[in-house]
């Protein structure tokens, strides 16, 4: 196997993380998460051994984490003044959801609005759950993260303080989506947060969770999120990750999924903000007949680096996985897609499809694609395809021949390319939000008629 070459932490930043770790442990008694200290300590030891990965590490070949090694990130200040009015722009129009708000990594009950939900289900913050004595969380937390080999996962585990917990007993269903809004204010400046979320869906349970990352004055911060998702047999979980942070932020998000028999998990990821974003999605299909959909869209401009690393593991027979990732890179942005399908020896009758399509809009944009198959079972059907190119000149010609100006034709084609990504989402209000965001990002947005915009919205709402 690949040897990993990693720089050992230098004194300069080893202190940063060691100090942060000491602070987290010091606060643990106060916020009730002291039972997690043993887990934190073990993970911190792993991190100290692994260090921040360099580009010599195969998994980080195209994404340079130098900033994490060279910045003395602090623990964010508490008590940022944020009102309901401040967060109103981040609400998703038309979405009726349970709202749970974290500001600079700290849970804000005052801003959250958790509506009534059925007995046998729980929505809340992890720290709060510990304070209430729900230590059952410990049965799940950390089980899906390989801290021995994943440096950033280890760092999150060592420094985690809070995050959302969504729990459903067997057969339960939370009808409304859970909207987890994470806001970074100026208190996050040059600070780091390590949100840790946990979603546990019992047998046959159903839930939808939206993780939504935005900035409200926060700059130059480092957000390192880990979400563990456990879908028991027959459970159905839809997960959305919307990354819309300030373009000076570093965001590393990991979604680690464990799936039981006949479970169905949909993961949708949209990367729009951030300076350096790394999005890890790692489902393990451990029960037979499981299904997962991994859908993503990343749209870069400026000097953004948007890195997506999928690792889909078929560990049981007859599972089906679908991966669809699309990238649109403009200016000097750099897109990365690494998708690995692993079929273990038990993964007979696997049916896995992976597709990664990318569009480059400028001379300086760059795209790296690494679609990978690692297969140890013989009775499988696995395919992957990757393409990178420009807006199809023939399609542009088709439009122009029908009287549309070239820039509008291009914009429409780019939009259509992106729309395929969010048309797979079931939540219509999220689609509408993304349609707006996408149109705003199009290079010729101002040239597009208002009708075009309205028409799209109309279409989306009608679906």
């Amino acid at each position: 196997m690949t040897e990993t070459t990693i720089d050992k932490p230098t004194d300069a930043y080893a202190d940063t993380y060691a100090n942060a770790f000491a602070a987290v442990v010091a606060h643990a008694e106060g916020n009730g998460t002291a039972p997690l200290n043993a887990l934190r300590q073990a993970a911190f030891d792993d991190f100290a051994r692994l260090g921040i990965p360099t580009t010599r590490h195969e998994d980080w070949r195209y994404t340079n984490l130098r900033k994490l090694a060279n910045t003395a990130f602090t623990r964010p200040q508490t008590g940022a003044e944020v009102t309901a009015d401040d967060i109103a722009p981040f609400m998703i129009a038309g979405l009726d959801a349970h709202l749970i708000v974290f500001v600079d990594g700290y849970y804000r009950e005052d801003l959250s609005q958790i509506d009534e939900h059925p007995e046998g289900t729980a929505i809340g913050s992890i720290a709060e759950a510990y304070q209430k004595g729900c230590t059952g969380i410990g049965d799940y937390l950390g089980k899906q993260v390989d801290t021995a080999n994943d440096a950033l996962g280890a760092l999150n585990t060592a420094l985690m303080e809070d995050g959302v917990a969504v729990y459903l007993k067997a057969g339960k269903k939370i009808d409304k989506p859970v909207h987890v809004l994470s806001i970074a204010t100026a208190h996050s400046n040059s600070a780091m947060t390590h949100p840790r979320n946990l979603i546990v869906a019992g047998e046959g349970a159903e839930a939808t969770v939206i993780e939504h990352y935005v900035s409200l004055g926060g700059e130059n911060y480092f957000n390192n999120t880990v979400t563990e998702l456990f879908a028991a047999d027959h459970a159905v979980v839809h997960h959305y990750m919307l990354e819309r942070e300030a373009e000076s932020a570093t965001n590393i998000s990991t979604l680690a999924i464990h799936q039981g028999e006949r479970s169905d998990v949909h993961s949708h990821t949209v990367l729009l903000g951030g300076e350096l974003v790394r999005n890890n999605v790692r489902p393990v299909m451990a029960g037979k007949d499981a299904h997962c959909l991994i859908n993503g869209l990343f749209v870069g401009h400026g000097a953004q680096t948007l890195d997506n690393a999928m690792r889909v593991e078929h560990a049981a027979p007859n599972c089906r996985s679908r991966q669809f990732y699309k990238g649109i890179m403009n200016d000097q942005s750099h897109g990365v897609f690494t998708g690995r399908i692993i079929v273990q020896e038990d993964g007979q009758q696997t049916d896995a499809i992976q597709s990664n399509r990318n569009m480059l809009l400028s001379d300086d944009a760059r795209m790296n694609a690494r679609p990978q198959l690692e297969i140890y079972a013989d009775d499988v059907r696995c395919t992957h395809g990757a393409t990178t190119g420009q807006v199809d000149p023939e399609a542009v010609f088709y439009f122009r021949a029908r009287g549309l100006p070239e820039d509008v034709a291009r914009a429409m084609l780019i939009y259509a390319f992106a729309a395929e990504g969010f048309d797979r989402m079931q939540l219509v209000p999220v689609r509408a939000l993304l349609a707006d965001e996408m149109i705003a990002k199009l290079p010729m947005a101002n040239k597009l008629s208002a009708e075009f915009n309205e028409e799209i919205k109309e279409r989306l709402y009608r679906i």
Partner: protein
Amino acid sequence: MTTTEEVAKLTHEKRDYKYGFVTDVDQEFAPPGLSEDIVRFISDKKGEPEWLLEWRLKSLRHWQTMETPSWEFLPYGYEEPDYQAISYYAAPKEKPKSLDELDPAILETYNKLGIPLAEQKVLAGIEGAAASAADARGMGGVAVDAVFDSVSVATTFQDELAKHGIVFCPISEAVQSHPELVKKYLGSVVPYSDNFYATLNSAVFSDGSFVYIPKGVRCPMELSTYFRINASNTGQFERTLIVADEGSYVSYLEGCTAPMRDENQLHAAVVELVAHKDAQIKYSTIQNWYPGDETGKGGIFNFVTKRGLCEGDHSHISWTQVETGSAVTWKYPSCILKGDHSKGEFYSVALTNLRQQADTGTKMVHIGKNTTSHIISKGISAGEGHNTYRGLVQMNKGAANAKNFTQCDSILIGDKCGAHTFPYIDVRNPSASAEHEASTTKIAEDQLFYCTARGIEEEDAVSLLVNGFCKEVFNELPMEFAVEANKLLAVSLEGSVG
């Protein structure tokens, strides 16, 4: 199609690995170990000029600072060779002064290897054989350079080729006869510091073929080299250099075998191709080094650096390989597409059976405008073999309108093998397009059923389907090689269908 009887017959041969014999020739060895003295010894043996010795020493000093690569994907791992235990030079004691004096044991070796009879006559120096052999082929015959351990023992048809101004000779001879060409091109595509094994090769390379095709010449026959590792405890480090000048064409074939031994032997070759404006080089390989036994014991480590430079506009390099042998293979025949409108192609069939591990593929680096590359890779995993495709398609900033198409398919036969695909696609020009498609499946049961329902034995049916699977690649091989490749595949697959 190969019938069951044929397979049975061939399998019988395979059971002992047909080419697993050892030839008893009086040989001269360098003492094991690697040092400046050994490099000087090799250089001195070959009577090399000072500049080449310096180049070797520079390589050796650089190599001593390098670390063994560790990025490979080899599920069973491998035991790193002890570079101080290898002898870097082995040669038949008496280099024949003329072909007549060629050691009969060596001739016998090539006989067993199946070098066509006509060439054997030439090797044996029968008068007029060259002409008749060429006639017999109609297509123009095959000129052979035979490399036995560290030296080239015989090269055929040299006179015939000389008429066209073509140089085809052992590289050690080219150093003497065409020093300006060797000096100009050696290391120009694979620099001495390129990678661990290429650098090692640069320091200790023993022999290999040198080909120069002058401007506008279409080489009238296939050129071919047979490589043979015979001695134990030696490594083979051959170096091949092919230069096709403007508007020329050459097709080159390479075949390799080695005796069966319990210990692993290292084969670290370097092949450099240079295609000038409008030139075309077609390079075909059938690699059948000893793969080791079913427990993974023994076999050749095939760590080879092959790279072609499409230097001029409209130049064209095509690699075709059939990889069935070796315990461990790392090999990435590559094309640097520098000239505008240049074209690179890679066609590969890699088969792993027993406990073989192959990590192979290609690199296409698009530098010039309107460059195109085409990659077809077929991997077949059987037994406990692991087959990995690893490839890079890179579109540089200046590669406007460059196009790539890649297809890599794998089939799995049996439930203990593995098939892996690791392509890298790096695009930095918006008008360039790269397309990659890959699939991994087992042998199609419906097709198998279709065949068996029509009375075709299952084993034959598998052979038929695998042949069909590989057809795109076999079509690229010269006729004789294609036949050999078909048989080789049938033999290598024997016993994997249950």
